[in-house]
């Protein structure tokens, strides 16, 4: 039982990370109909910037235990890049999807050089800072407290986005725009502003996610591509454009990966993509394949 719980917790932690990347991807696609490959780059940017912010804050005398707040603020501060990139993407909204994919892929490559320029080529990390939060133990199961905080943060973000989309006026406008952009525009919705706001929100989901997760891992130039590969499995399984799908897809991918690693490590990717193929055949729109709930 202990072994199973260890595997399950490992899977849920990975799912939490994937959800933070996939949520931004889903939100942007749901409203703007753009598959934003650069979502992984926002995640990486959040990770790098988070490390610099924490190092700066500690050097300035901040107690190390407060680093989680610095990471959240660092991730939120990167919201400033959202409107800038959205303004660039605005030029291809009406073009073929291939153009959009190429443009966002170009952004991935550009971001890689931007990260290299500011932070260098070597992986960056926060050393043993994550240890300052200690561990939680129950029976034979031990989990770093910080990992639990990341899982809780992901759940809170999922619940928060759900409530925001379902229960706020702005959320209803977003959903209406996702359903029918022209009708929303005819009813007086400022779609240009909505696009900028949604893209910025999607960006922040990635940057905050990257900043929150980096104390448990490391920031590297390879991480955007690595994450996007899995994030795509998440959105195919969950349904492109669906926030609920992002959550379900992330859980399926995270737990499938953990089980594959436990029982036959070589089949890690195969196990995930068997599910992807099965979903594509049996339910092409994904498990929650609506544009946005």
């Amino acid at each position, binding site marked *: 039982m202990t072994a199973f719980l260890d595997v399950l917790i490992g899977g849920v*932690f990975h799912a939490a990370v994937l959800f933070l990347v996939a949520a931004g991807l889903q939100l942007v696609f749901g409203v703007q109909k753009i598959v934003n490959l650069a979502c992984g780059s926002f995640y990486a940017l959040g990770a790098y910037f988070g490390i610099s912010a924490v190092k700066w804050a500690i050097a300035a005398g901040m107690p190390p235990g407060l680093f989680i707040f610095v990471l959240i603020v660092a991730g939120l501060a990167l919201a400033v890049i959202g409107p800038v990139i959205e303004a660039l993407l605005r030029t291809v909204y009406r073009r073929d999807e291939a153009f959009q994919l190429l443009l966002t892929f170009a952004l991935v490559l550009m971001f890689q050089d931007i990260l*290299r320029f500011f932070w260098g*080529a*070597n992986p960056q990390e926060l050393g043993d800072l994550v*240890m300052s939060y200690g561990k939680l133990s129950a029976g034979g199961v031990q989990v*770093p407290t910080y990992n639990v905080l990341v899982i809780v943060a992901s759940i809170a973000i999922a619940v928060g986005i759900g409530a925001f989309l379902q229960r706020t006026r702005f959320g209803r406008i977003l959903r209406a725009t996702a359903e029918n952009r022209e009708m929303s525009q005819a009813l007086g919705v400022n779609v240009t502003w909505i696009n900028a706001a949604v893209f910025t929100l999607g960006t922040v989901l990635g940057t905050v996610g990257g900043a929150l997760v980096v104390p448990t*891992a*490391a920031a590297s130039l390879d991480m955007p591509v690595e994450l996007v590969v899995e994030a795509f499995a998440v959105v195919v399984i969950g349904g492109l454009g669906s926030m609920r799908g992002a959550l379900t897809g992330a859980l399926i991918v995270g737990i499938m990966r953990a089980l594959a690693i436990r029982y036959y490590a070589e089949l890690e990717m195969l196990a995930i993509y068997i599910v992807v193929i099965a979903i594509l055949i049996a339910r092409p729109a994904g498990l929650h394949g609506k544009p946005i709930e």
Partner: protein
Amino acid sequence: MKNGRRQVLKAGAALAASPFLSFPALAQNTPIRVGIIAPKAGIAGTIGECGLRGTQFAVEHINANGGIAGRKVELVIEEETNPKDSIERLRKLVLQDKVDCVQGIVSSGVSLAMGPAAEDMKALTIFWDGTTQDGVKETMPNKRYVFCSTDNECEAVMGSLLAIKHWKGQFKKVAGINPDYSYGRNNFAAFQALLKKYNIEHQVVADQWPKVGTTDLNSHVAALKAAQPDLVFSSLLFADLPIFMRTAHGAGLMDGKTKFVFPAAGFQHTALKKSFTPPGMIFGHNTLYFDYAKGTDLQKQFVKWYHEKTNDYPNWEADRAFFAMAVYKAGVEAAQKAKGAWPGKEDVINAMEGIKVQSLGGPGQMRKDHIAEQTFYQGITTHDNKYDFPTLGTVDVMYSDQLQKGTGQDFWKWIETANIKL
């Protein structure tokens, strides 16, 4: 008139043949150009930078002491990336920059492809690391212009031997977490082959193969913990090693009696903080252990120089780079002495075969089959030091003739038959 022109031509030919105007004599007045190809980005970026520091130190040292046979050394540095682009840079160094020797390369993937290209170009090339082996099978048995590092599996062989030496009878269930490419696969296979050779009864209860660059190892650690191994053997060596250590510590994998062998920990030694890296593990520092009390003055001088420049402590790639330059210097000087004039490339190559040098980490030599032999350092870690990361409490030193196959031998047969003193 016709006769006069012939006389002028004859005189010109005689002048050109004269030792006073020979090219070698001209060459002695110019610096020796050494091309370096090393990674500056990606997972091997840190390692490449450390190697470049080793080269920089070697060149400063050589130039301050009169150069190589009286000629100063000048570096032309290029970046190691993928095999195709790295080979293009080799061509550029040889054809455009006209370097006398090329050194560098960390990745086996690049060295495998670059070896034949360097042979085709007759470019004198000394690899820092990587080997010209496909897995453990030598792909270039008859090298002429290419000189290789020690076998990549040396550290795994030594780590396995130390596990047997120190912990025989204390483990039965073994697990592995090794990088998912030939290096990791061969290392774990070598570990098992050595257990078999020394009749250590064992059972592999888990083998994990994270892809290089994986930053979430929670599931891998959970799988290892579930298997309840007595000993974990891991040749992780890039940024994934500190992540593994943190994750394993957080999940309680290191709380019990499980023993750990990390033959390549020396690549990340300063990132493995005491707070999540318990003492009592086997760590490999390969050919340079920066804190070796019995280290030479040269090593201590280098470690001090490196620390002043980087506020960090060097890993073994610095030694590999220094070794490459030392072998080249010794080869040129031996050839010059033997010839009594400035030597050609073939003379230098002949002189380098079998030459012995003192590297940062200790004595080494270049075998006649162009494979390096060097001194290796591993041991059991301690927290009893002035650093925030573990160092070696007990240091075992082995020369690579005990750790790598001989000329033309099969690696797996060598493991079976080698007479190794534990």
